[in-house]
């Protein structure tokens, strides 16, 4: 199996303060911690497991600038064989269509059997790059994949639906799968492991190398145009319980007792 995994570096915003840039078109990134998109990490692990079971190669690709290199090295340390960086400069501000077009150049040019990607990313959360890429390529696809088993020329997957239900599908190869969290337990990456892949060469491809003309991606080529970002309007806010932890605990227990809890 020749597998391509699409990964992205994203900021952790769940556990951090998110501040708008003065121009209202983006957020301040300086104080945020960045790492591999949570869904992509599971996708990389799944690709490596498929390779371990069936042979082949795993290539990871990102559209990013030089500061995304650490994410690619992390994937190499996990067990990916090759990494490719598509120069993200011209893609700045791209919508999912621009990103999918950039990835199409790689996926189409090399004979991959499978392309894996995260089901969505923790920043924009469009969940579009995978299925749009599959549409561009004319390949089969499945989103929200929770298991993969390779058969002869095909792949059987489960997709997560709602309420604990899953569906089972069989897809013709080549296929694009977008991976849901929890599909596996991603392996731990040690500092030693990263050191070992420190000198591995990572080619950087420009637009021409992925078959795109200048100006065909990036903010000005977007189909989805960001007008402005804003902080969500305050809706119904919770009544805040304040005090020392002991005082807060007492108030919580009062509510628990009021609601018939044991407390």
């Amino acid at each position, binding site marked *: 199996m020749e597998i391509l995994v699409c990964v992205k570096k994203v900021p952790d915003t769940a556990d951090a303060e998110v501040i708008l840039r003065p121009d209202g078109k983006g957020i301040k990134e300086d104080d945020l911690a960045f790492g591999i998109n949570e869904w992509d990490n599971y996708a990389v692990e799944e690709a490596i497991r498929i390779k371990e079971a069936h042979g082949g190669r795993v290539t990871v690709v990102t559209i990013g600038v030089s500061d995304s290199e650490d994410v690619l090295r992390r994937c190499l340390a996990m067990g990916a064989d090759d990494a490719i960086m598509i120069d993200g400069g011209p893609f700045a501000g791209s919508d999912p269509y621009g990103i999918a077009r950039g990835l199409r150049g790689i996926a189409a040019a090399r004979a991959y059997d499978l392309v894996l990607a995260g089901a969505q990313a923790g920043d924009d959360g469009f969940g579009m790059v995978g299925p749009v890429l599959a549409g561009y390529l004319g390949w089969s696809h499945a989103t*929200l994949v929770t298991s993969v088993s390779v058969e002869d020329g095909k792949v059987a997957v489960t997709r997560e639906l709602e309420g604990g239900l899953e569906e*089972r599908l069989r897809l013709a190869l080549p296929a694009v799968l977008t991976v849901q969290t929890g599909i596996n337990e991603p392996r731990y990456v040690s500092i030693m492991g990263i050191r070992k892949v420190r000198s591995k060469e990572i080619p950087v491809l420009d637009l021409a190398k992925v078959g795109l003309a200048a100006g065909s991606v990036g903010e000005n080529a977007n189909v989805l145009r960001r007008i402005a970002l804003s902080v969500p309007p305050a809706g119904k806010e919770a009544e805040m319980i304040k005090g020392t932890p002991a005082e*807060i605990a007492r108030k919580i227990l009062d509510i628990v007792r009021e609601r018939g809890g044991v407390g």
Partner: protein
Amino acid sequence: MAKVFIVAEHRQGAIRDATYELVTLARELESKFALEPAAVVIGHGVRPFAEVLSRHVNETIMVENEALADFRYETYAAVLRDIIMKETPLVVLCPQSAFGMELFPRLSAETGRPCATDCVQVEMDGPSLVVVRSIYNGKINSRLAFASSGGYLITVRAGSYAPAAEADKAGTIRDYPCPAFGEPFKTEFLGYREAAAGTVDISQAPFLLSIGRGIKDTENIPKAEELAAKLGAVLSCSRPVVDKKWLGKERQVGTSGRTVKPKLYLAMGISGAFQHLAGIKGSGTFIAVNRDPKAPIFRAADYGVVEDMFKIMDALKEQIGT
């Protein structure tokens, strides 16, 4: 008049609730911006669904075919492509669900019509469609416009619009011919698989202590279990706790887990993603503990505590002990 189409979502013999939220949105687009709503029902044996929808909108387009019995993007996208090209709706709506996520981005690539997923608000600004999306873990809203197109595909986040109440319109049902498919198919539906039943049923618990990624480490799980026991609560959790295998899937609250309706929901270290909150819609009193004052969960909770959850857990244990 420009049209807005609702793609009805159904599974295992029932229309899914999110469809009725789209009805509300389509009606709003009708009253505010004079778009004409219609429903699209695709499947096999779906006349009863078409009948239900015909009580909500003037026209329901029904595509009935054996090959459509089980949802696959391949066949459903082919049908929608045909409908979109012939009927040229300005807006086509679908729930942001496993169904919509599988179908709409693909349909967009195949039709060239722009798609925006997971929208929480949809409106017209003059002749242009504008949507709002909630990004960066619900901390930022993003307003998006589109490059000009003959039509737009939109998936809508569950809970963004109230579900439409029962209606009694006498709308028409139009039998729409199923287009020919470009066989052989590349996808094959094999069947459904139900999650294995666990040892607890959190959906019946009157009091849930629910922990999220803030619990940080598997080593801290016993602390939460101990507190739950002392409180007389059942322990539940958000998805990352299950993804990491720290607790079983049967304890997960949310769209892809269980729907719960306890009298009291005490959430700790949970940020308040919509997929989580959708699982506790019918709950009674909701207390959230989170160290981030901007956590979206405080917009849904009745009571909020901005504090380290471990301090609160320890203090609770002490208070109960005395």
